[in-house]
């Protein structure tokens, strides 16, 4: 991975990387039938701080969803109708991306660093390149799947921080990573990562697995159910 390589290079350049401890209020988000979104708290601490000036420290937290290949299409006017015409396939677009920071991103790190680490929606757009990438990021943002919130990471005490992350109702299923970046005067001084899983449970999981893993059985059950529902309605409300 380019990003991990870049992090490695940056870490090597830093003389004394700080040890970051990261913890999530829950490492699994379970989607049940009453799911309308979830919020998780991300806590972190700097273990045995060695920096001279703790005031210069800034934190960036990224909740990154599973990467997927997407197709972005543009509607164009053909014979008076707006049809899908041009399209572009974008590889490795995260299904979800939510960034939180202790200060405005521009003050935390310069553009080159942000782009190297893939921090921020601008960095994602640059990495994907072009008007289709801009549209992809904009559409994801409108669907509440991409978000940037600068200044909401709270310092609870010396080297201890916290942020609340909201996951919307349409949050995609899959394996997520919660990444933390500690910046000391514009330079990465430490990183940490915790896995986060978004899964369907209970009935939701049962139905989805049946539909995708036993499609024939699912089809037979659905059709039988429909006929039974019609029959039952006729019997219950029979007039004669």
């Amino acid at each position, binding site marked *: 991975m380019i990003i991990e390589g870049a992090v490695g290079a940056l870490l090597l350049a830093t003389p004394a990387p700080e040890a970051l401890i990261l913890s999530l209020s829950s490492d699994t988000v379970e989607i049940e039938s009453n799911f309308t979104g979830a919020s998780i708290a991300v806590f972190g601490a700097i273990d045995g701080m060695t920096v001279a000036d703790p005031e210069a420290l800034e934190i960036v937290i990224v909740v990154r969803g599973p990467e997927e290949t997407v197709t972005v299409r543009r509607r164009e006017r053909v014979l008076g109708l707006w049809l899908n015409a041009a399209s572009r396939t974008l590889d490795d677009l995260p299904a979800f991306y939510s960034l939180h920071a202790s200060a405005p991103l521009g003050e935390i790190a310069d553009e080159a660093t942000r782009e190297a680490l893939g921090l921020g929606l601008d960095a994602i757009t640059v990495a994907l390149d072009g008007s289709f990438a801009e549209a992809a990021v904009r559409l994801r943002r409108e669907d509440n799947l991409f978000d940037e919130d600068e200044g909401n990471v709270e310092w609870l005490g010396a080297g201890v921080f916290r942020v609340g992350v909201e996951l919307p109702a349409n949050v995609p299923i899959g394996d997520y990573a919660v990444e933390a970046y500690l910046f000391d005067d514009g330079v990465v001084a430490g990183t940490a990562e915790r896995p986060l899983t978004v899964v369907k449970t209970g009935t939701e999981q049962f139905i989805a697995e049946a539909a995708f893993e036993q499609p024939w059985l699912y*089809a037979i059950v659905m059709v039988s159910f429909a006929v039974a529902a019609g029959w039952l309605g006729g019997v219950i409300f029979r007039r004669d």
Partner: protein
Amino acid sequence: MQLYLPIAEIPINVILIVGIGAAIGFISGLLGVSGGFLLTPLLIFAGIPTAIAVGTSAAQVVASSSSAALSYWRKGSVDFRLAFVLIAGGVVGSAVGVLSFRLLREGGQLDVIIAIAYAVLLGGVGGTMLVESIRSSLAVRRGRPEQLLREPRRRPSRLPFQMRFPVARLQISAIPLVGLGFAIGLLGSFLGVGGGFLVVPALIYFFRISTSVVIGTSLVQIVGTMAVATGLHAVANHSVDAILAIVLMTGGVVGAQFGARSASVLRGETLRALLAILVLAVGVRFMVDLVATPSEPYSISEEA
């Protein structure tokens, strides 16, 4: 009240979906149509992804039609031989429809093609219905009896595969019947509609079958064809959402009974005119979306 849909992967408002199901059920009970041609568009407008709206509508059409089909069966007004010939064509049509549905979905053109199909279909059906209902209400006002049957066309000339249908009192080649079934299966699986609004006039005007047998037979055909379409959508596209279907059917079954009861109370021409306007409005909405400059020309979809 929100409920998360396991296949569509979005939460829906239960009250809204029950309401849509009940409204469609009411119309179907009232007018003897399956209502799929309004259900799919309403689901799309409610934010359900197009593919899932079509697949789940097909399931709902099976539920609403089977209720009515059973009552016609009890009365003995179903020609099963005729229904099976139509279904035989319908199965092939459904398979072709579901397959092309899948290809278009993968090619990213599904939503646009469905919008065009609905704009044309609903515009045509709604316009014809409106003209007919205005004409018949004018005829009633002038004191003339309603002209239901037009001069029937000649039956198709002698083709091979002649078959006898005792209940419908018909002897005819199976070819045009299988062809009709195929067309309905194609349309039904592609748009999530039952196609009763096309089969009934075709059987009455073109094949000259008596109206009493036509409706029951067409309902059995719709149940058979749409059951196959539902199954194929579930297998090939994974686009039948069980929770959405259950919520829709709950509203639909109840609505259908109220519709059937209201049919004797409410005036036929007025209702048909209202339905025609509703159908036209939905068709126009699709047309506007196709013709008007979109505020967001881009769309995004995951690779299958």
